[in-house]
């Protein structure tokens, strides 16, 4: 396929098709509705199904059913819609089913707004639903990466029999960029001996998250934990941008913010300022070791997010003692220009910024 100019949301839809997904259940919500608009045209061309559910609750339970029946399935939504899906995400994690979720984040809490945000980091990486589970979370920063992540998400979901989320901000969904689809995106699905596809000559399969017997539930919890241990060992993804050298300031950012930070970093480096970027690509598992190691080469750390401070908590947890950690966030759908980030970096450099204290900012202010 020749390179195409695509909106992030359309590219996400096509990536799912290219990955062999033929079952898409969703409910529209800005700023990701173009995924559905694209697939309503595209799915019939490949004998696929797009079923618009009556709500996000229903859509996510349809995913449960489709995945249990052994087919590749996914949905896309935006922040409040993902909240509605939270219960079934927990059930799907408990039942160990492969499902791909795409969350194109908008501002919150509540209905919030429709403009870009990164304020669902906690929800995506720390739960959202109840119980002892994790989503594997990938955060693209370009439309091309959104394509690659969607294709990878299907593979990882099947590898671990666990829900995987592609987490982009509204800008990733809305902007247009040239994209190239890989020639062979369809991976052979692994055997699904657990799927409910008719008993034939084997014992009955039962897919459930209900385990009333304490030992059975414990065994399921420990099986999940063992998968998360494997993910934390094998699925950590990140990018170093001039972060493998000594730095006066090390920036940590993901998604669109990482892109804006790179523009600021390029300009500062042209002026001889030693500044680099660590960009987490997998948000869970968080690249703890990479952040720790790179922060050891830095005099100070600056975390920038489209939130009032979420990933910064993981950076604080990962960074070695003694490195001051600063935070700069923009919210409400406002996106800072690169100058705002260079300004923050320069404040850190000039000793004009206050690092976050042990208890956030109030401690420093009082």
């Amino acid at each position, binding site marked *: 396929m020749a390179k*195409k100019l695509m909106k992030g949301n359309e590219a996400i839809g096509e990536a799912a098709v290219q990955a062999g997904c033929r079952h898409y259940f969703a409910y529209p919500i800005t700023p990701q509705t173009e995924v559905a608009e694209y697939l309503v045209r595209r799915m019939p061309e490949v004998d696929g199904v797009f079923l618009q559910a009556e709500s996000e609750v229903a859509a996510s339970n349809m995913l449960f059913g489709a995945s249990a029946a052994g087919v590749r399935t996914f949905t896309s939504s935006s922040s409040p819609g993902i909240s509605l899906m939270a219960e079934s995400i927990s059930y799907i994690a408990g039942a160990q089913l492969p499902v791909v979720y795409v969350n194109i984040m908008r501002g919150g809490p509540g209905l919030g707004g429709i403009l870009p945000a990164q304020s669902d980091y906690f929800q995506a990486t720390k739960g959202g639903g109840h119980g002892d589970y994790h989503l594997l979370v990938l955060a693209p920063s370009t439309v091309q990466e959104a394509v690659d992540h969607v294709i990878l998400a299907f593979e990882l979901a099947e590898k671990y029999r666990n829900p995987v989320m592609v987490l982009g901000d509204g800008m990733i969904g*809305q902007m*247009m960029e*040239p994209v190239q689809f890989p020639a062979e995106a369809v991976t052979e699905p692994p055997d699904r001996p657990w799927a409910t596809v008719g008993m034939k000559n084997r014992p009955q399969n039962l897919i459930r998250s209900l385990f009333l017997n304490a030992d059975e539930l414990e065994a399921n919890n420990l099986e999940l934990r063992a998968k998360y241990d494997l993910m934390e060992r094998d699925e950590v993804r990140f990018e170093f941008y001039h972060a493998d050298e000594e730095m006066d300031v090390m920036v940590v950012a993901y998604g669109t913010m990482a892109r804006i930070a790179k523009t600021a970093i390029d300009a500062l480096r042209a002026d001889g300022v030693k500044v680099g970027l660590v960009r987490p690509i997998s948000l869970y598992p968080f690249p703890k070791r990479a952040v720790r190691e790179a922060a050891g080469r830095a005099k100070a750390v600056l975390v920038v997010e489209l939130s009032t401070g979420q990933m910064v908590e993981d950076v604080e947890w990962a960074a070695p003692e003694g490195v001051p950690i600063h935070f700069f966030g923009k919210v409400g759908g406002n996106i800072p220009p690169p100058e705002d980030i260079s300004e923050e970096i320069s404040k850190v450099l000039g000793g004009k910024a206050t690092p976050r204290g042990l208890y956030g900012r109030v401690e420093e202010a009082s």
Partner: protein
Amino acid sequence: MVLSVPNTVFESVPTRVIVFTGNYGSGKTEVSVNFTLGLAALESELSIVDLDVVNPYFRCREAIEPMEAAGVEVIVPRGETFASELPIILPEVKGAMTRDTGRLVLDVGGDDVGARVLSSFGPALRGDQAELLMVLNARRPFTDTVDGALRIIREIENASRLKVTGLVCNTHLMEETRVEMIQEGVELAEAVSAETGATVRFVAAMDDMAAGYIEAVGGSPPYPVLPMVRRMLPPWISPLRQGRDRFRQIGLD
């Protein structure tokens, strides 16, 4: 701008009202804004309406300032509704459409969904006083083939209850555009024209690509060429000065 805008671009669409439509992400807004800025040099009374009721993320609202500076009346929701997803049609729109004087450019939302709003203006857009232009990018999904483009045109015509009368070639792949892509786009538009009777009016391309295209066709392009300057910039491409200069400016160095 390296190239000047030839008047032949504007002569190709002489009607009082010019409507830009197209499929999602075809570049309607970039074309309408650049077209309007060029036309502003020739017209004393010129208005542009942002009629995109589908999606407020990238609209000509972002290009308001340069157009107003050029003396264009920009009709767009303001204040609280600027970034809303409400289908707002301002009362000024009907006024601008039904008056007899001045030129008017309409930037309509994508696909048939965006074009449906046109049907409510009925008579004001029928007859010979309005052109309905379809912006075509042959590198976009669904308009990369003649059949695909014809389908989109039919959908837009059905929804708007108007006929597409002209085509604008806007084939590009952003920074990765090459001159051959523009030529492919012109060929696609000519094939679409042969099927629909809508004529190719002009070719739009970013300034450097426009120059490359004109050179590639031996200096005499088959259609007028509108050289454009990119107005809808993503936030990581900053037109402002970076680095030390910026520090000095804000007193931090």
